[in-house]
């Protein structure tokens, strides 16, 4: 899993029908100290996260199929938790 920041949500009327019931969020990876890393990408939301949240994202199609109990969603990234605190004790 990776730590990401939720940048916002995506509005899309013309999309694969199997996204129905899932919010599609725009997320971007952050380092534990909070700096952005890499390109923004889209993840479906399984934990009711919101804009500005720090979240856990699983980037694996198999896991997504287990969580959603569906093999029909053309996506491999899913938000698996909203992070309250990140501690970087070395």
């Amino acid at each position, binding site marked *: 899993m990776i730590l990401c920041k939720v*940048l*916002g*949500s*995506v*509005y*899309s*009327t*013309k*999309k*694969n029908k199997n*996204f129905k019931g899932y919010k*599609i969020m*725009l997320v971007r990876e952050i380092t534990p100290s909070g700096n*952005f890393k*890499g*390109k*923004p*990408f*889209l*993840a479906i939301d399984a934990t009711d996260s919101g*804009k500005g949240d720090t979240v856990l994202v699983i980037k694996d*199609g198999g896991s997504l199929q287990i969580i959603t109990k569906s*093999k*029909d*969603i*053309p*996506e*491999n*990234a899913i938000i698996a938790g909203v992070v309250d605190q990140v501690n970087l004790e070395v």
Partner: protein
Amino acid sequence: MLIGKVVGSVWATKKLDSFEGKKLLIIQPFNEDMKPEDKFIVAVDTVQAGKGDIIFYATSKEAAIPFKNDKMPADAAIVGIIDGFSL
């Protein structure tokens, strides 16, 4: 899934049978600043996307999911058109 912009299309008469009847569109993926980067990929369209549309696309094995039964050997499939973001 990744985000990009449709910048063109590709016509191929001699091609894999599984591409028969499918639209092949040229996409420029977005970079860190959500702007088209200098890279172009060809993806199979599944949502009637057109030139200029901002879209999202599945890659690797997820790209085949929309075509479940006829085993599409594509590595990129457009699966949604973005109307807007709430940022």
